[in-house]
């Protein structure tokens, strides 16, 4: 549970607000973050941030006001001041044409399912040492960059709706290294994720980088002509495709407002291939296990696509209130889990006998030229290779895919039988770890390649 001093201040302010008849929620977010950035074989930045944020939301009938303070919580009066400010904002607000919902902790939570004090307090020199080990083992003539973000996050939520409290504490880390050939300009990348100090192993990265570097050193890159190809998507590419597809396909707001690519379907309709099943599963240990949302709802397994059929839509509080639905515990990022198939361990094995295939481990800069048709575009980057009958044949230049989610997830020929974690966290705002659990690869037929550069 949150440290007693801060907790008491927040509870005192909450109770005081309740006595004054205010309807308020207070969420504390505290992070202890560290990031080491690598550029040109050196540590280019080594940062530490200890930050505390307080998000306050007040409802006044159909009016709402919110205020966020980044700074230490020093007294109940200070918390109350933020509540009062939000209340004044709510009083001046334009009323909505629906009644908004107040966050309400429906079930007390005190969880730290994936917390490791050793990771929270990891000595940055450990990171520097592992990077140095990788540079040395793979070859110091290459140009290396990368980043290693690690840290802890605490979230504490209460509201005037009841006396219950929800608390989560966790640690997380995302390690990446990029190897670039100084003259030939090709780039390889490796990533690892985890929540414990010992989760990152230099050996695994060294083995993978060496394997690809061997091919890239020996065989020149090739340009892919536009057309339809069998593509093997690696876990990062698969997770990104799934994340975008679900964000725009099962999002209740986009669906209700006719912007979703599923808007012309009903729940129960087949929208993707029969071999695609996707569940929001905060209980999956590969997803950082965040057990409640910002609305105070306990998160549980929530299927969204079952055997290709749209099985449910996800509703945040505002959308639920506006469209008369029940909120589904999605006042947070979903924990996407794609069900595995029966494919062999190795993607190379999976495409044996299939002729030419393109292996695209990650998609760079994906975007959506036509959301309502499910059209996406993005380009290959890092370690992309042409496969011939299950053998790595040649590196490929930066190649653009422009296709639809329905086509890609409708033409999956093989799904790996092994599920892996893909860390999808960013560090734009507050520390908020998110990960998807996806098959380690998917073989997809008839993927549209629309452009290719003449360089990596």
């Amino acid at each position: 549970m949150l440290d007693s001093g801060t907790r008491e201040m927040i509870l005192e302010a909450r109770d005081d607000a309740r006595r004054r008849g205010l309807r308020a929620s207070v969420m504390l977010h505290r992070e202890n973050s560290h990031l080491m950035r690598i550029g040109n074989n050196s540590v280019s930045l080594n940062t530490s941030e200890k930050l505390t944020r307080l998000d306050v939301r007040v409802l006044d009938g159909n009016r709402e006001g919110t205020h966020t303070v980044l700074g230490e919580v020093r007294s109940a009066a200070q918390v109350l001041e933020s509540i009062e400010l939000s209340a004044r904002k709510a009083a001046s607000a334009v009323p909505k044409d629906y009644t908004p919902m107040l966050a309400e902790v429906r079930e007390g939570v005190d969880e730290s399912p994936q917390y490791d004090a050793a990771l929270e307090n990891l000595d940055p020199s450990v990171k520097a040492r592992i990077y140095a080990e990788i540079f040395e083992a793979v070859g110091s003539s290459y140009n290396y960059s990368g980043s290693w973000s690690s840290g802890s996050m605490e979230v504490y939520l209460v509201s005037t709706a009841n006396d219950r409290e929800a608390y989560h504490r966790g640690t997380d880390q995302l390690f990446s290294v990029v190897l670039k050939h100084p003259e030939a300009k090709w780039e390889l990348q490796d990533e690892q994720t985890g929540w414990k100090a010992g989760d990152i192993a230099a050996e695994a990265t060294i083995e993978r980088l060496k394997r690809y570097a061997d091919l890239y050193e020996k065989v020149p890159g090739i340009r892919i002509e536009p057309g339809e190809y069998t593509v093997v998507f690696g876990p990062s590419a698969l997770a990104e495709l799934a994340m975008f597809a679900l964000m725009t396909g099962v999002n209740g707001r986009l669906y209700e407002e006719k912007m979703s690519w599923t808007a012309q379907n009903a729940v129960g309709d087949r929208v993707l291939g029969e071999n695609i099943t996707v569940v929001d599963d905060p209980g999956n240990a590969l997803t950082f296990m965040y057990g409640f949302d910002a609305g105070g709802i306990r998160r549980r397994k929530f299927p969204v696509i079952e055997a290709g059929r749209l099985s449910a839509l996800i509703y945040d509080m505002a959308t639920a209130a506006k469209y008369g639905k029940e909120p589904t515990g999605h006042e947070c990022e979903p924990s996407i889990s794609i069900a595995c198939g029966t494919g062999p361990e190795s993607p190379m094995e999976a495409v044996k006998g299939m002729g030419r295939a393109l292996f695209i481990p990650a998609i760079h800069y994906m975007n959506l030229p036509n959301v309502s048709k499910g059209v996406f575009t993005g380009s290959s980057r890092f370690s992309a290779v042409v496969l011939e009958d299950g053998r790595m044949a040649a590196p490929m230049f930066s190649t653009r895919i422009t296709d639809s989610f329905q086509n890609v997830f409708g033409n999956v020929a093989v799904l790996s039988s092994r599920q892996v974690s893909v860390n999808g966290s960013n560090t734009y705002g507050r520390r908020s770890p998110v990960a998807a659990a996806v098959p380690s690869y998917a073989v997809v037929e008839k993927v549209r390649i629309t452009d290719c550069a003449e360089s990596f």
Partner: protein
Amino acid sequence: MASPDGVKEDIGRGIDAALSAGAEYADARYFTEDLSENLVLYDGNLEANDTGFQSGVGVRVLWGGAWGFAATSDTGSVTACFDRALQNARTASRLVKVKIRMGKNPPVRGSYSSPVEVDPFTVDLSDKLGFLTALDSRMKEDWILRRIVGAEFQKRRILFMSSDGSEIEKRLANVFATMMVMALDSDGRMQRRSMQLYTTGRGTRCWEMLCEPELFGAHAERIKSELSELVKADQIEHGTRSVILLPGQGFLQVHETIGHPLELDRILGYELSYAGGSFVTLDSIGRLRYGSEKLNVSSYGSIENSPGTFGFDDDGSPERDYLLIDRGILVNALTSRAMVNEANDRAGREVFRDAGGVARATAFYRAPIDRMTNVNILPGTDGTLEDIVASTENGIIVDNPTSWSIGSNREHFHFGCEIAWEVRDGRRTRVLRNPTYQGHTLEFYGSLSAVGDERTWRVEQVDNCGKGEPNQVMQLGHGVPVVRFDNVITGERG
């Protein structure tokens, strides 16, 4: 909580202590206040009525050629923050192949204030909502399914101090605003038209700018009218043709395919692990033909009214006005102190003479990195939009991005836009929906065939440029005229 004067004294002591401990350089940015307000009406419902306040100190220490950074929102612990930054730098210095050098600069003492007439944080919330609600009402029609009107205000007061002896105070203010209408087309798919608050590059930049009809509000009728045509429009067909970019689209083209590839940290490989690299090399400077003779691009551009105008960067360098591309030839990059020193060291010659003043951090808890200021295409001599249309045989005019996807070295791109107008034999013929275009950067700018004059030029504001690790969202501007490119692939196959 420490008083501002007390924090300043602690920073001074911290810088001295870092130097005494052997640091080559140290600086701190103290955000005494960082205020934000975000108001969004969605179908008339006030879905965002948010304010934010943050204050704190960010400290950088350069020790052994390596950066250490630490930040705290607890202004009573500035000394500990310096200790942490120093410790981080010492740790980082154990793995340094390329030593970072800030060099010795003379102290800079100065201040900068964004030109403000009416501080939006002094305007009553009910007045702000009254303005937005009135605009929303004007966009209301039975056939319009979704309406969005929003405004965002920012105010920052920053004290910068460095071991150069520099002391700079900045008071920065921004206002951004957007409006959008959406309706279903004949296939039952949602189409949209939008408009963002822009500036002329002159005048003041706060509440009063938002209230200037020509810069924002007066466009409500236009976007409604354009949406009504768009929902009845034909789908664009795949083909090669000229593309005329209005400033609402041109700014993003410049941003993604000139601005980002010319950030020197990116050229030197410091962004590889996240945003990507650049096809530009140090050898490209002064030699690379980036575009046709009609392409002239500046950094900063002495634009007084823009989010990319800030007086001094977060290294303490003055923001500098200079050309990046001169008649199609690449002549400079977006540069900061340490990156200039490293680039010149690597090249073994003076590729860059001065720092361009582009190092910026988005908040006290982020370290400065190279960011765009105002990256501008200078006005040309090809007249107005209608003049350019009159000289176009087969093309489309496009406006406002819906999608952007760019290759990792910025060598190729794909953009989707809200609307296109077909041009045949010098005349606009019809509206087309779902326009997209794609190309390869150098080939594309090489096909630049028309650049509108000053009458077509305006400053588009950007409030969401993402870069760096830890990630940072930055505000900046792009002055752009109407521009035309030839032989561009448009639409999608099949």
